[in-house]
Protein backbone atom coordinates (compact mmCIF):
# COMPACT_ATOMS: atom_id res chain seq x y z
CA UNK A 1 0.00 0.00 0.00
CA UNK A 2 2.82 2.40 0.93
CA UNK A 3 4.42 1.81 -2.47
CA UNK A 4 1.21 2.71 -4.28
CA UNK A 5 0.89 5.79 -2.03
CA UNK A 6 4.46 6.86 -2.87
CA UNK A 7 3.89 6.39 -6.58
CA UNK A 8 0.63 8.37 -6.51
CA UNK A 9 2.15 11.22 -4.54
CA UNK A 10 5.08 11.30 -6.98
CA UNK A 11 2.58 11.48 -9.86
CA UNK A 12 0.68 14.38 -8.25
CA UNK A 13 3.85 16.41 -7.89
CA UNK A 14 5.31 15.40 -11.24
CA UNK A 15 2.13 16.35 -13.11
CA UNK A 16 0.66 19.88 -13.12
CA UNK A 17 -2.27 18.74 -10.94
CA UNK A 18 -0.76 19.61 -7.55
CA UNK A 19 0.72 22.85 -8.90
CA UNK A 20 -2.67 23.95 -10.21
CA UNK A 21 -5.08 22.63 -7.58
CA UNK A 22 -3.23 23.85 -4.46
CA UNK A 23 -2.60 27.46 -5.63
CA UNK A 24 -6.08 27.78 -7.15
CA UNK A 25 -7.62 26.58 -3.90
CA UNK A 26 -5.54 28.95 -1.77
CA UNK A 27 -5.90 31.97 -4.06
CA UNK A 28 -9.67 31.75 -4.48
CA UNK A 29 -10.43 30.86 -0.86
CA UNK A 30 -7.94 33.57 0.21
CA UNK A 31 -9.71 36.13 -1.95
CA UNK A 32 -13.12 35.31 -0.43
CA UNK A 33 -11.65 35.26 3.07
CA UNK A 34 -10.06 38.72 2.55
CA UNK A 35 -13.31 40.04 1.11
CA UNK A 36 -15.20 38.75 4.14
CA UNK A 37 -12.63 40.11 6.62
CA UNK A 38 -11.78 43.50 5.13
CA UNK A 39 -14.95 44.42 3.21
CA UNK A 40 -17.73 42.78 5.21
CA UNK A 41 -15.75 43.21 8.47
CA UNK A 42 -16.54 39.63 9.53
CA UNK A 43 -13.65 38.37 11.66
CA UNK A 44 -14.62 34.73 11.30
CA UNK A 45 -13.61 31.68 9.22
CA UNK A 46 -17.18 30.46 8.65
CA UNK A 47 -17.57 32.10 5.22
CA UNK A 48 -14.10 30.86 4.24
CA UNK A 49 -15.06 27.25 5.15
CA UNK A 50 -18.25 27.54 3.16
CA UNK A 51 -16.36 28.81 0.12
CA UNK A 52 -13.69 26.14 0.54
CA UNK A 53 -16.38 23.43 0.48
CA UNK A 54 -17.80 24.82 -2.75
CA UNK A 55 -14.30 25.06 -4.25
CA UNK A 56 -13.63 21.43 -3.34
CA UNK A 57 -16.75 20.42 -5.28
CA UNK A 58 -14.85 21.56 -8.36
CA UNK A 59 -11.23 20.78 -7.44
CA UNK A 60 -11.53 17.28 -5.94
CA UNK A 61 -12.80 15.81 -9.26
CA UNK A 62 -9.61 17.17 -10.88
CA UNK A 63 -7.56 15.49 -8.15
CA UNK A 64 -9.31 12.12 -8.46
CA UNK A 65 -10.15 11.85 -12.16
CA UNK A 66 -6.94 10.07 -13.14
CA UNK A 67 -6.58 7.81 -10.10
CA UNK A 68 -8.00 4.65 -11.74
CA UNK A 69 -9.12 5.90 -15.17
CA UNK A 70 -5.55 6.59 -16.25
CA UNK A 71 -4.32 3.18 -15.08
CA UNK A 72 -7.13 1.62 -17.11
CA UNK A 73 -6.44 3.56 -20.28
CA UNK A 74 -2.67 2.95 -20.22
CA UNK A 75 -2.96 -0.73 -19.25
CA UNK A 76 -1.05 -0.30 -16.00
CA UNK A 77 -4.05 -1.56 -14.00
CA UNK A 78 -3.28 -5.00 -15.49
CA UNK A 79 0.27 -4.56 -14.26
CA UNK A 80 -0.96 -3.79 -10.73
CA UNK A 81 -3.28 -6.82 -10.83
CA UNK A 82 -0.28 -9.02 -11.66
CA UNK A 83 1.76 -7.65 -8.72
CA UNK A 84 1.54 -8.89 -5.12
CA UNK A 85 -0.69 -5.95 -4.14
CA UNK A 86 -4.35 -6.45 -3.18
CA UNK A 87 -7.15 -4.39 -4.70
CA UNK A 88 -7.84 -2.94 -1.24
CA UNK A 89 -4.25 -1.73 -0.94
CA UNK A 90 -4.22 -0.30 -4.48
CA UNK A 91 -7.29 1.78 -3.61
CA UNK A 92 -6.06 2.72 -0.15
CA UNK A 93 -2.71 3.95 -1.48
CA UNK A 94 -4.46 6.12 -4.07
CA UNK A 95 -7.04 7.38 -1.58
CA UNK A 96 -4.40 8.36 0.98
CA UNK A 97 -2.31 10.16 -1.65
CA UNK A 98 -5.33 12.30 -2.58
CA UNK A 99 -6.07 12.87 1.13
CA UNK A 100 -2.45 14.03 1.55
CA UNK A 101 -2.91 16.58 -1.23
CA UNK A 102 -6.14 17.73 0.42
CA UNK A 103 -4.29 18.08 3.74
CA UNK A 104 -1.61 20.21 2.06
CA UNK A 105 -4.34 22.49 0.69
CA UNK A 106 -6.01 22.82 4.09
CA UNK A 107 -2.68 23.30 5.87
CA UNK A 108 -1.91 26.15 3.46
CA UNK A 109 -5.17 27.83 4.42
CA UNK A 110 -4.09 27.95 8.08
CA UNK A 111 -2.33 31.18 7.11
CA UNK A 112 -5.77 32.85 7.10
CA UNK A 113 -5.72 32.64 10.89
CA UNK A 114 -2.88 35.20 11.10
CA UNK A 115 -4.93 38.24 9.93
CA UNK A 116 -7.77 37.04 12.19
CA UNK A 117 -5.38 37.14 15.15
CA UNK A 118 -4.17 40.60 14.12
CA UNK A 119 -7.62 42.15 13.74
CA UNK A 120 -9.70 40.25 16.31
CA UNK A 121 -9.69 37.66 19.03
CA UNK A 122 -11.07 34.62 17.23
CA UNK A 123 -12.81 31.74 18.98
CA UNK A 124 -10.68 28.74 18.00
CA UNK A 125 -13.44 26.18 18.75
CA UNK A 126 -15.42 26.77 15.55
CA UNK A 127 -12.17 27.11 13.58
CA UNK A 128 -10.86 23.66 14.51
CA UNK A 129 -14.36 22.17 14.17
CA UNK A 130 -14.60 23.78 10.73
CA UNK A 131 -11.27 22.28 9.69
CA UNK A 132 -12.36 18.85 10.95
CA UNK A 133 -15.59 19.18 8.98
CA UNK A 134 -14.00 20.27 5.75
CA UNK A 135 -11.38 17.52 6.04
CA UNK A 136 -14.07 14.86 6.51
CA UNK A 137 -16.17 16.26 3.67
CA UNK A 138 -13.05 16.40 1.47
CA UNK A 139 -12.28 12.73 2.15
CA UNK A 140 -15.88 11.88 1.19
CA UNK A 141 -15.43 13.75 -2.06
CA UNK A 142 -12.19 11.87 -2.71
CA UNK A 143 -13.82 8.53 -2.06
CA UNK A 144 -16.65 9.37 -4.46
CA UNK A 145 -14.07 10.55 -7.05
CA UNK A 146 -12.10 7.31 -6.63
CA UNK A 147 -15.22 5.26 -7.30
CA UNK A 148 -16.25 7.25 -10.38
CA UNK A 149 -12.69 7.05 -11.71
CA UNK A 150 -12.92 3.24 -11.45
CA UNK A 151 -15.94 3.23 -13.77
CA UNK A 152 -14.29 4.67 -16.86
CA UNK A 153 -11.08 4.96 -18.86
CA UNK A 154 -11.85 8.56 -19.73
CA UNK A 155 -10.56 11.12 -17.22
CA UNK A 156 -12.91 13.88 -18.41
CA UNK A 157 -15.91 11.60 -17.92
CA UNK A 158 -14.57 10.71 -14.46
CA UNK A 159 -14.21 14.39 -13.51
CA UNK A 160 -17.65 15.38 -14.79
CA UNK A 161 -19.31 12.33 -13.21
CA UNK A 162 -17.68 13.08 -9.85
CA UNK A 163 -18.70 16.74 -10.01
CA UNK A 164 -22.30 15.73 -10.74
CA UNK A 165 -22.46 13.36 -7.74
CA UNK A 166 -20.76 15.87 -5.42
CA UNK A 167 -23.19 18.63 -6.43
CA UNK A 168 -26.08 16.21 -5.91
CA UNK A 169 -24.88 15.44 -2.36
CA UNK A 170 -24.36 19.14 -1.68
CA UNK A 171 -27.79 20.33 -2.83
CA UNK A 172 -29.91 17.26 -2.05
CA UNK A 173 -31.19 18.87 1.17
CA UNK A 174 -33.24 21.28 -0.93
CA UNK A 175 -35.23 18.47 -2.56
CA UNK A 176 -37.50 18.45 0.47
CA UNK A 177 -38.46 22.03 -0.40
CA UNK A 178 -40.15 20.95 -3.61
CA UNK A 179 -43.77 20.02 -2.90
CA UNK A 180 -43.88 17.67 -5.87
CA UNK A 181 -41.05 15.63 -4.41
CA UNK A 182 -42.24 15.51 -0.82
CA UNK A 183 -43.65 12.01 -1.33
CA UNK A 184 -40.05 10.77 -1.25
CA UNK A 185 -39.70 10.23 2.44
CA UNK A 186 -35.94 10.36 2.89
CA UNK A 187 -33.87 12.38 5.38
CA UNK A 188 -32.44 14.62 2.65
CA UNK A 189 -31.18 17.08 5.22
CA UNK A 190 -29.05 14.42 6.87
CA UNK A 191 -27.85 12.92 3.58
CA UNK A 192 -26.66 16.30 2.29
CA UNK A 193 -23.00 17.10 2.89
CA UNK A 194 -23.83 20.82 3.13
CA UNK A 195 -25.92 20.22 6.27
CA UNK A 196 -22.98 18.63 8.08
CA UNK A 197 -20.62 21.31 6.84
CA UNK A 198 -22.93 23.95 8.33
CA UNK A 199 -22.89 22.22 11.71
CA UNK A 200 -19.09 22.00 11.81
CA UNK A 201 -18.69 25.67 10.85
CA UNK A 202 -20.91 26.65 13.75
CA UNK A 203 -18.55 24.73 16.00
CA UNK A 204 -20.87 21.76 16.45
CA UNK A 205 -19.03 18.45 16.36
CA UNK A 206 -21.83 15.91 16.10
CA UNK A 207 -20.84 12.29 16.42
CA UNK A 208 -23.61 11.49 13.94
CA UNK A 209 -22.02 13.83 11.38
CA UNK A 210 -18.60 12.24 11.83
CA UNK A 211 -20.03 8.74 11.58
CA UNK A 212 -22.10 9.68 8.52
CA UNK A 213 -19.20 11.27 6.63
CA UNK A 214 -16.83 8.40 7.45
CA UNK A 215 -19.52 5.90 6.42
CA UNK A 216 -20.07 7.74 3.14
CA UNK A 217 -16.31 7.55 2.46
CA UNK A 218 -16.27 3.85 3.32
CA UNK A 219 -19.33 3.18 1.16
CA UNK A 220 -17.82 4.66 -2.01
CA UNK A 221 -14.43 3.09 -1.23
CA UNK A 222 -16.34 -0.22 -1.04
CA UNK A 223 -18.08 0.48 -4.35
CA UNK A 224 -14.68 1.14 -5.96
CA UNK A 225 -13.36 -2.15 -4.49
CA UNK A 226 -16.36 -4.06 -5.87
CA UNK A 227 -15.91 -2.40 -9.27
CA UNK A 228 -12.25 -3.45 -9.53
CA UNK A 229 -12.99 -6.90 -8.16
CA UNK A 230 -15.71 -7.38 -10.80
CA UNK A 231 -13.29 -6.19 -13.45
CA UNK A 232 -10.78 -8.81 -12.33
CA UNK A 233 -13.52 -11.46 -12.32
CA UNK A 234 -13.94 -10.42 -15.98
Amino acid at each position, binding site marked *: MLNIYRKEL*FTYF*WSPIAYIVVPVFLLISGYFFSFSLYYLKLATMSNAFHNMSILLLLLVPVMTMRLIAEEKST*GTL*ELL*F*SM*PVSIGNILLGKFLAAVTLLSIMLAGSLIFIIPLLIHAEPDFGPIWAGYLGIFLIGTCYISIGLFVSSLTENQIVAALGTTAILILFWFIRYIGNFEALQFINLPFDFISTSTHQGDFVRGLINLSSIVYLLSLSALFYGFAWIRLHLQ*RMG
Partner: protein
Amino acid sequence: MLEVRNLTKKIDGKTIVKDISFSLGEGEILGFVGPNGAGKTTTLRMLACCTLPASGTATLDSFDLVKDDMQIRRKIGYLPEVPPLYEHMKVATYLRTIARFKGIPANRQKGAVDEVIERCFINKMSVREIGKLSKGYRQRVGLAQAILGNPRLLLLDEPTSGLDPGQISEMREIIRRAAKKSMVIFSTHILQEIQNLCHRIVLIKNGELTYQGKLDQYGLANDGITHLVLRLKGDRNLIETALNPDGSDISFHLEGPGNGTNEIKASVQFPENEATQTTILRELLNRNVTILEVSPKAKDLEHTILEFMRSE
Protein backbone atom coordinates in the same frame (compact mmCIF):
# COMPACT_ATOMS: atom_id res chain seq x y z
CA MET B 1 6.91 -26.51 -12.57
CA LEU B 2 3.68 -25.09 -13.99
CA GLU B 3 0.66 -27.36 -14.30
CA VAL B 4 -2.44 -26.06 -16.03
CA ARG B 5 -5.53 -28.23 -15.90
CA ASN B 6 -8.81 -27.58 -17.75
CA LEU B 7 -8.54 -23.84 -17.51
CA THR B 8 -11.74 -22.21 -18.76
CA LYS B 9 -12.76 -18.57 -19.07
CA LYS B 10 -16.17 -17.20 -19.91
CA ILE B 11 -16.92 -13.55 -20.63
CA ASP B 12 -20.55 -12.46 -20.78
CA GLY B 13 -21.61 -16.10 -21.01
CA LYS B 14 -19.36 -16.77 -24.02
CA THR B 15 -16.57 -19.30 -23.61
CA ILE B 16 -13.29 -17.62 -24.55
CA VAL B 17 -10.94 -20.35 -23.33
CA LYS B 18 -12.12 -23.92 -22.99
CA ASP B 19 -10.48 -26.68 -20.97
CA ILE B 20 -6.89 -25.82 -21.73
CA SER B 21 -4.33 -28.13 -20.11
CA PHE B 22 -0.58 -28.15 -20.42
CA SER B 23 2.53 -28.18 -18.29
CA LEU B 24 5.85 -26.40 -18.34
CA GLY B 25 9.16 -27.49 -16.87
CA GLU B 26 12.39 -25.80 -15.81
CA GLY B 27 14.18 -23.80 -18.48
CA GLU B 28 11.49 -24.38 -21.07
CA ILE B 29 10.19 -21.82 -23.54
CA LEU B 30 6.63 -22.54 -24.56
CA GLY B 31 5.15 -20.82 -27.59
CA PHE B 32 1.44 -19.99 -27.62
CA VAL B 33 0.44 -19.97 -31.24
CA GLY B 34 -2.91 -19.19 -32.77
CA PRO B 35 -4.82 -16.73 -34.88
CA ASN B 36 -6.08 -13.44 -33.44
CA GLY B 37 -8.92 -13.94 -30.96
CA ALA B 38 -7.93 -17.57 -30.30
CA GLY B 39 -7.68 -17.07 -26.54
CA LYS B 40 -3.91 -16.70 -26.17
CA THR B 41 -4.03 -13.36 -24.36
CA THR B 42 -6.90 -14.45 -22.11
CA THR B 43 -4.96 -17.55 -21.07
CA LEU B 44 -1.87 -15.46 -20.28
CA ARG B 45 -4.01 -12.95 -18.35
CA MET B 46 -5.43 -15.77 -16.24
CA LEU B 47 -1.94 -17.08 -15.48
CA ALA B 48 -0.86 -13.52 -14.60
CA CYS B 49 -3.75 -13.22 -12.08
CA CYS B 50 -5.25 -10.32 -14.07
CA THR B 51 -8.49 -12.18 -14.53
CA LEU B 52 -9.97 -15.18 -12.75
CA PRO B 53 -10.78 -18.46 -14.50
CA ALA B 54 -14.39 -19.70 -14.57
CA SER B 55 -13.15 -23.21 -13.83
CA GLY B 56 -10.02 -25.32 -13.92
CA THR B 57 -6.80 -24.98 -12.00
CA ALA B 58 -3.21 -23.96 -12.46
CA THR B 59 -0.42 -24.57 -10.00
CA LEU B 60 3.01 -23.01 -9.97
CA ASP B 61 5.42 -24.78 -7.62
CA SER B 62 2.37 -26.25 -5.82
CA PHE B 63 0.74 -22.82 -5.30
CA ASP B 64 -2.80 -22.58 -6.62
CA LEU B 65 -3.60 -19.80 -9.09
CA VAL B 66 -6.79 -18.72 -7.30
CA LYS B 67 -6.31 -19.70 -3.66
CA ASP B 68 -2.67 -18.63 -3.36
CA ASP B 69 -2.76 -15.76 -5.84
CA MET B 70 -0.49 -13.52 -3.76
CA GLN B 71 2.26 -16.17 -3.73
CA ILE B 72 1.75 -16.74 -7.46
CA ARG B 73 2.04 -13.01 -8.17
CA ARG B 74 5.40 -12.95 -6.38
CA LYS B 75 6.63 -15.62 -8.78
CA ILE B 76 5.53 -14.22 -12.11
CA GLY B 77 6.63 -11.52 -14.50
CA TYR B 78 4.08 -10.35 -17.05
CA LEU B 79 4.45 -8.28 -20.18
CA PRO B 80 1.08 -7.54 -21.80
CA GLU B 81 0.84 -6.85 -25.53
CA VAL B 82 0.96 -3.09 -24.85
CA PRO B 83 3.79 -2.49 -22.35
CA PRO B 84 2.29 -1.15 -19.09
CA LEU B 85 4.40 1.95 -18.52
CA TYR B 86 4.12 5.07 -16.40
CA GLU B 87 4.97 7.53 -19.16
CA HIS B 88 5.97 10.39 -16.88
CA MET B 89 8.62 8.38 -15.02
CA LYS B 90 12.25 7.97 -15.93
CA VAL B 91 13.21 4.42 -16.84
CA ALA B 92 15.21 3.78 -13.65
CA THR B 93 12.51 5.36 -11.45
CA TYR B 94 9.86 3.22 -13.12
CA LEU B 95 11.84 0.03 -12.59
CA ARG B 96 12.52 1.01 -8.98
CA THR B 97 8.76 1.51 -8.50
CA ILE B 98 8.05 -1.92 -10.00
CA ALA B 99 10.73 -3.46 -7.76
CA ARG B 100 8.86 -2.06 -4.75
CA PHE B 101 5.53 -3.33 -6.07
CA LYS B 102 7.07 -6.78 -6.53
CA GLY B 103 8.17 -6.77 -2.93
CA ILE B 104 11.90 -6.98 -3.66
CA PRO B 105 13.67 -6.08 -0.38
CA ALA B 106 14.92 -2.46 -0.26
CA ASN B 107 18.59 -3.45 -0.04
CA ARG B 108 18.31 -5.53 -3.23
CA GLN B 109 16.22 -3.15 -5.32
CA LYS B 110 19.06 -1.14 -6.81
CA GLY B 111 21.03 -4.23 -7.76
CA ALA B 112 17.96 -5.87 -9.32
CA VAL B 113 17.16 -2.73 -11.35
CA ASP B 114 20.76 -2.34 -12.53
CA GLU B 115 20.80 -6.00 -13.57
CA VAL B 116 17.70 -5.76 -15.79
CA ILE B 117 18.86 -2.46 -17.28
CA GLU B 118 22.04 -4.29 -18.29
CA ARG B 119 20.20 -7.38 -19.52
CA CYS B 120 17.75 -5.39 -21.65
CA PHE B 121 20.38 -3.08 -23.14
CA ILE B 122 18.74 0.11 -21.85
CA ASN B 123 21.73 1.59 -19.98
CA LYS B 124 21.76 4.70 -22.14
CA MET B 125 18.07 5.29 -21.61
CA SER B 126 17.89 4.80 -17.84
CA VAL B 127 17.58 8.53 -17.10
CA ARG B 128 15.24 9.25 -20.00
CA GLU B 129 11.53 9.81 -19.52
CA ILE B 130 9.58 6.75 -20.73
CA GLY B 131 7.07 8.84 -22.70
CA LYS B 132 9.92 10.08 -24.91
CA LEU B 133 11.30 6.63 -25.81
CA SER B 134 10.92 4.90 -29.18
CA LYS B 135 8.67 1.84 -29.51
CA GLY B 136 11.62 -0.53 -29.39
CA TYR B 137 12.94 0.92 -26.14
CA ARG B 138 9.48 1.03 -24.60
CA GLN B 139 9.13 -2.66 -25.36
CA ARG B 140 12.50 -3.35 -23.73
CA VAL B 141 11.51 -1.38 -20.63
CA GLY B 142 8.30 -3.42 -20.52
CA LEU B 143 10.32 -6.61 -20.74
CA ALA B 144 12.74 -5.30 -18.09
CA GLN B 145 9.89 -4.84 -15.60
CA ALA B 146 8.69 -8.39 -16.37
CA ILE B 147 12.07 -10.04 -15.77
CA LEU B 148 12.85 -7.85 -12.75
CA GLY B 149 13.54 -10.04 -9.73
CA ASN B 150 14.02 -13.15 -11.90
CA PRO B 151 10.45 -14.49 -11.67
CA ARG B 152 9.86 -18.24 -11.80
CA LEU B 153 7.40 -17.82 -14.66
CA LEU B 154 7.66 -15.21 -17.37
CA LEU B 155 4.51 -14.48 -19.39
CA LEU B 156 5.08 -12.49 -22.57
CA ASP B 157 2.23 -11.46 -24.84
CA GLU B 158 3.55 -10.87 -28.36
CA PRO B 159 6.77 -9.30 -27.08
CA THR B 160 8.20 -8.51 -30.51
CA SER B 161 5.13 -7.16 -32.27
CA GLY B 162 5.81 -3.95 -34.16
CA LEU B 163 9.60 -4.08 -33.77
CA ASP B 164 12.12 -3.84 -36.58
CA PRO B 165 14.29 -6.89 -37.43
CA GLY B 166 17.26 -5.64 -35.38
CA GLN B 167 15.11 -5.02 -32.33
CA ILE B 168 13.40 -8.41 -32.77
CA SER B 169 16.76 -10.12 -32.77
CA GLU B 170 17.77 -8.31 -29.55
CA MET B 171 14.46 -9.14 -27.89
CA ARG B 172 14.93 -12.80 -28.78
CA GLU B 173 18.35 -12.76 -27.20
CA ILE B 174 16.96 -11.20 -24.02
CA ILE B 175 14.19 -13.80 -23.86
CA ARG B 176 16.63 -16.64 -24.51
CA ARG B 177 18.81 -15.43 -21.62
CA ALA B 178 15.79 -14.90 -19.39
CA ALA B 179 14.83 -18.54 -19.96
CA LYS B 180 18.00 -19.59 -18.12
CA LYS B 181 16.43 -18.25 -14.93
CA SER B 182 12.70 -18.53 -15.63
CA MET B 183 10.15 -20.71 -17.37
CA VAL B 184 8.82 -18.70 -20.30
CA ILE B 185 5.46 -18.70 -22.04
CA PHE B 186 5.06 -16.32 -24.90
CA SER B 187 2.34 -15.81 -27.43
CA THR B 188 3.15 -14.97 -30.98
CA HIS B 189 2.03 -15.38 -34.53
CA ILE B 190 5.50 -14.79 -35.95
CA LEU B 191 6.71 -18.14 -37.26
CA GLN B 192 10.39 -17.29 -37.11
CA GLU B 193 10.04 -16.68 -33.41
CA ILE B 194 8.44 -20.06 -32.85
CA GLN B 195 11.27 -21.75 -34.71
CA ASN B 196 14.02 -19.74 -33.08
CA LEU B 197 12.92 -19.71 -29.48
CA CYS B 198 10.40 -22.35 -28.52
CA HIS B 199 11.15 -25.77 -27.15
CA ARG B 200 7.49 -26.69 -27.39
CA ILE B 201 4.37 -25.12 -28.83
CA VAL B 202 0.72 -25.00 -27.85
CA LEU B 203 -1.67 -24.32 -30.69
CA ILE B 204 -4.90 -22.63 -29.67
CA LYS B 205 -7.89 -21.99 -31.82
CA ASN B 206 -11.35 -20.77 -30.91
CA GLY B 207 -10.36 -21.06 -27.27
CA GLU B 208 -9.42 -24.72 -27.51
CA LEU B 209 -6.02 -26.35 -27.43
CA THR B 210 -5.58 -28.27 -30.67
CA TYR B 211 -1.96 -29.40 -30.39
CA GLN B 212 0.85 -29.36 -27.91
CA GLY B 213 4.25 -30.86 -28.27
CA LYS B 214 7.57 -30.45 -29.95
CA LEU B 215 7.64 -28.09 -32.82
CA ASP B 216 9.23 -30.43 -35.37
CA GLN B 217 6.64 -33.13 -34.74
CA TYR B 218 3.65 -30.94 -35.46
CA GLY B 219 3.66 -31.64 -39.20
CA LEU B 220 3.85 -35.38 -38.57
CA ALA B 221 1.14 -35.47 -35.97
CA ASN B 222 -1.24 -33.11 -37.57
CA ASP B 223 -2.93 -34.18 -40.74
CA GLY B 224 -3.08 -37.99 -40.89
CA ILE B 225 -0.80 -38.06 -43.92
CA THR B 226 2.49 -39.93 -43.87
CA HIS B 227 5.36 -38.21 -45.61
CA LEU B 228 8.34 -40.44 -46.39
CA VAL B 229 11.63 -39.74 -48.03
CA LEU B 230 13.25 -42.81 -49.61
CA ARG B 231 16.80 -43.11 -50.90
CA LEU B 232 16.72 -45.86 -53.47
CA LYS B 233 18.92 -47.56 -56.05
CA GLY B 234 17.22 -49.21 -59.01
CA ASP B 235 15.43 -48.74 -62.30
CA ARG B 236 13.30 -45.58 -62.40
CA ASN B 237 10.41 -47.28 -64.23
CA LEU B 238 10.34 -50.13 -61.73
CA ILE B 239 10.34 -47.66 -58.86
CA GLU B 240 7.43 -45.76 -60.41
CA THR B 241 5.48 -48.98 -60.80
CA ALA B 242 6.20 -50.04 -57.22
CA LEU B 243 5.06 -46.69 -55.83
CA ASN B 244 1.86 -46.80 -57.84
CA PRO B 245 -0.03 -49.97 -56.93
CA ASP B 246 -3.59 -50.20 -58.25
CA GLY B 247 -6.22 -48.21 -56.38
CA SER B 248 -3.75 -46.55 -54.00
CA ASP B 249 -3.84 -42.96 -52.75
CA ILE B 250 -0.09 -42.55 -53.03
CA SER B 251 1.51 -39.48 -54.54
CA PHE B 252 5.23 -39.28 -55.12
CA HIS B 253 7.99 -37.26 -56.64
CA LEU B 254 11.32 -38.66 -57.87
CA GLU B 255 14.65 -36.89 -58.08
CA GLY B 256 17.77 -38.33 -59.72
CA PRO B 257 18.61 -40.28 -62.89
CA GLY B 258 17.46 -43.71 -61.68
CA ASN B 259 19.55 -45.67 -64.17
CA GLY B 260 20.14 -48.57 -61.82
CA THR B 261 23.51 -47.50 -60.49
CA ASN B 262 22.90 -43.95 -59.24
CA GLU B 263 20.79 -42.99 -56.29
CA ILE B 264 17.23 -41.78 -56.66
CA LYS B 265 15.35 -39.84 -54.05
CA ALA B 266 11.61 -40.40 -53.72
CA SER B 267 9.30 -38.13 -51.71
CA VAL B 268 6.16 -40.11 -51.03
CA GLN B 269 2.87 -39.12 -49.41
CA PHE B 270 -0.03 -41.38 -48.53
CA PRO B 271 -2.85 -41.62 -45.97
CA GLU B 272 -1.53 -42.72 -42.57
CA ASN B 273 -1.77 -46.49 -42.75
CA GLU B 274 0.88 -48.98 -41.75
CA ALA B 275 -0.27 -51.48 -44.37
CA THR B 276 0.33 -48.98 -47.20
CA GLN B 277 3.86 -48.35 -46.02
CA THR B 278 4.57 -52.10 -45.86
CA THR B 279 3.07 -52.61 -49.31
CA ILE B 280 5.26 -49.91 -50.85
CA LEU B 281 8.42 -51.32 -49.32
CA ARG B 282 7.51 -54.89 -50.34
CA GLU B 283 6.75 -53.80 -53.93
CA LEU B 284 10.13 -52.08 -54.13
CA LEU B 285 11.99 -55.13 -52.83
CA ASN B 286 10.05 -57.44 -55.19
CA ARG B 287 11.37 -55.35 -58.08
CA ASN B 288 14.96 -55.63 -56.86
CA VAL B 289 15.14 -51.97 -55.85
CA THR B 290 17.74 -51.36 -53.15
CA ILE B 291 16.38 -49.32 -50.24
CA LEU B 292 19.22 -47.22 -48.82
CA GLU B 293 17.20 -45.13 -46.39
CA VAL B 294 13.62 -44.58 -45.25
CA SER B 295 12.96 -41.43 -43.27
CA PRO B 296 9.79 -39.66 -42.19
CA LYS B 297 9.52 -36.01 -43.16
CA ALA B 298 7.56 -33.27 -41.46
CA LYS B 299 5.53 -31.04 -43.69
CA ASP B 300 7.08 -27.65 -44.10
CA LEU B 301 6.45 -26.01 -40.71
CA GLU B 302 5.58 -22.59 -41.97
CA HIS B 303 3.12 -24.03 -44.46
CA THR B 304 1.56 -26.28 -41.83
CA ILE B 305 1.09 -23.56 -39.23
CA LEU B 306 -0.23 -21.08 -41.75
CA GLU B 307 -2.72 -23.75 -42.83
CA PHE B 308 -3.71 -24.17 -39.18
CA MET B 309 -4.19 -20.45 -38.64
CA ARG B 310 -6.26 -20.01 -41.78
CA SER B 311 -8.45 -23.08 -41.46
CA GLU B 312 -11.93 -22.67 -40.03
